C-alpha cells in the first residue's frame, strides 16, 4: 500500500495575516508567501490544504494573487511534486477563485473538509474531467487500467493523465517493475 503523503493545513482567516475580509493584491501576496513557505517545508509529494472557510470576503485581486499565482507556480513545477488543495464549501466566495483560475487556464482540487470527496475549481477541458474523475474514483490506477476503463489507447491515456499531473491535480508514480517495462500509475491528491 502506498505511503500516505505528508500534509499541512493552513487556515487563512486565523493566520497572522488573516482576517474575515481578505482584499487587495498586497494582502494576497503576503498570504501567498506564507503558503509558499509551508509548501516548501513539506516533503516531496506533500499536500498543502489551504482552508479559507473562515473568510467572509475574498476579492478577485486577493484570490488571484494568493491562489491564482500559487497554483500557476505549482503547475509550473516550482514546488516539485508538492500540491495545493483548497478547503472551502460551495459558496459565492469561490467565484473569484474560479475567475482567477479560469483566467490562467488552470484548476485546483477543492474539498468541503479534509478527507471529503474532491471537486474542481477553475478550468479543466471536458475530456480531462472524465479522466480526472476516473482516477479519483479508482484511488490509484495504472495507465493500462485507466486506458481500458476510458476506452483509449495507452499513449492518449498517458497524454491526458500527464496533462492532469502538470496541472497539479493528481500524483503520478513510475512503476519500473511493470510487465513490458516502465509504466505510470496515478492517484488523486486529496
Amino acid at each position, binding site marked *: 500500500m502506498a505511503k500516505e503523503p505528508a500534509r499541512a493545513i493552513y487556515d487563512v482567516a486565523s493566520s497572522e495575516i488573516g482576517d474575515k*475580509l481578505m*482584499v487587495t493584491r498586497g494582502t494576497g501576496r503576503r498570504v501567498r508567501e506564507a503558503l509558499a513557505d509551508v509548501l516548501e517545508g513539506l516533503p516531496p509529494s506533500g499536500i498543502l490544504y489551504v482552508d479559507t472557510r473562515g473568510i*467572509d470576503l475574498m*476579492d*478577485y485581486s486577493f484570490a*488571484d494573487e494568493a491562489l491564482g499565482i500559487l497554483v*500557476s507556480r505549482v503547475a509550473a513545477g516550482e514546488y516539485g511534486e508538492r500540491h495545493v488543495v483548497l478547503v472551502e464549501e460551495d459558496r459565492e466566495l469561490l467565484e*473569484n477563485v474560479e*475567475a482567477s483560475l479560469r*483566467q490562467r487556464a488552470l484548476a485546483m482540487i477543492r474539498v468541503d473538509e479534509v478527507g471529503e470527496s474532491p471537486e474542481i475549481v477553475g478550468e479543466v477541458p471536458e475530456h480531462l474531467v472524465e479522466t480526472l474523475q476516473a482516477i479519483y474514483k479508482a484511488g490509484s490506477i495504472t495507465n493500462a487500467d485507466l486506458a481500458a476503463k476510458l476506452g483509449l489507447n495507452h499513449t492518449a491515456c498517458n497524454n491526458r493523465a500527464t496533462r492532469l499531473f502538470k496541472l497539479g491535480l493528481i500524483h503520478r508514480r513510475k512503476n519500473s517493475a511493470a510487465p513490458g517495462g516502465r509504466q505510470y500509475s496515478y492517484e488523486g491528491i486529496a
Partner: protein
Amino acid sequence: MKTLLELNIRRRGAMSGVLTLGSLDPTFTAAMKVRGEPVVLDLRLVEFVEPSGICGLATLLEFLIPRSNEVGLMLSGHNVPAYLERMNFFRIFGDRVKTNTDVTALEERRRGNPGTLQELVNFHSEEEIPGIIGRISEILENKEYRLRERAAICATLSEICANAVEHGASPFGAYAAVQAYQHIVSGGRERRGEEVLVAIADGGIGVRDTLSRNPKYSEYTKTDNDSLRHALKMGVSGTGEIGRGGGLAVVGQIAVRTGGSLSLRSGAGRVTFYGDRTNSRNVPFFPGTFVRVSLPRKV
C-alpha cells in the same frame, strides 16, 4: 477679479438640484484655464449631493486649489452644508477653501447620517484599503445587511479603490464615498428597497493611457470610449500579465447581478454597463478616472 465657475445643475425633473459628476462638467475645463486668480464655485442651486457629486467636487478642488490663490464655495440653505459636513467634506477641505457658511456651527450639530456607509475618504495607497473595507463592513453588519450584500459592496469598493491607487496615481490620491438611499424598487410588485451608490474618483492618467501601455490594445484605445468599453472585459489590463484585469469585470458582474449598473468616466468618454447592454457617450473632459456603481437592494 474673481472667476465665477458655474455648474450645470438641473432645475427640472427628477434630478433637479442634484449635484452629480455631470453637474461639474463645465468646471473641469474652466479649471484648467485658471492661472492663479481667485475662483468661486457657485453651488447655490444644489439641494442634494450624491456620492458621485461629492467625489467629483473633491477632485475638482484638488485641481483648482494649486491653480488658484483662493478657492471659494458659495452654498445656500442648511441641508447641503450640513450634509457636506457629515460626509467629512469640511474636515478635508475646510482649511483649503473659503465658504459663505459657518462650518463651526455645523460641527457642533454633527450627527450621523443613517444612509451614509462611507464618508468622503481620501486615500493614496493600497495599504489603506483593508482599513476602509473593514470599517464599511462593520457598518453594514450593524445595519443587518446580509453576508452576500456586504460582500458585494465591499468587493466593489476594494477592487475600484485598488484600481484607483494602482493605475490612477496622482498627487492627491483618490476619493471614495458610499451612500444608501431608500426608494421604491420595481418588480413583480413594488416594494420598499434601497440603492447603494459607490463612487470613486482619481486624478491619474486615465483608462486610455493606462491601456495604451499594452501595444496589443492599440485597436481598442483609439478613443476614450473604446478604451472604457475594452477595460470592462475580463483579463484586460495595461500590464498584460495573466490574471490581471479581472477586478473591473468582476465589479460589473456584481452590479448586474444586483440589477444595478457600472459607470466609468475617463477623459472624454463615459460608458455605462448594464449587463445586457453598454451605453457610451462623448462627454466633457474629466481629468482622471471616475467610477460609479449602483447596487440596488430589496429589503
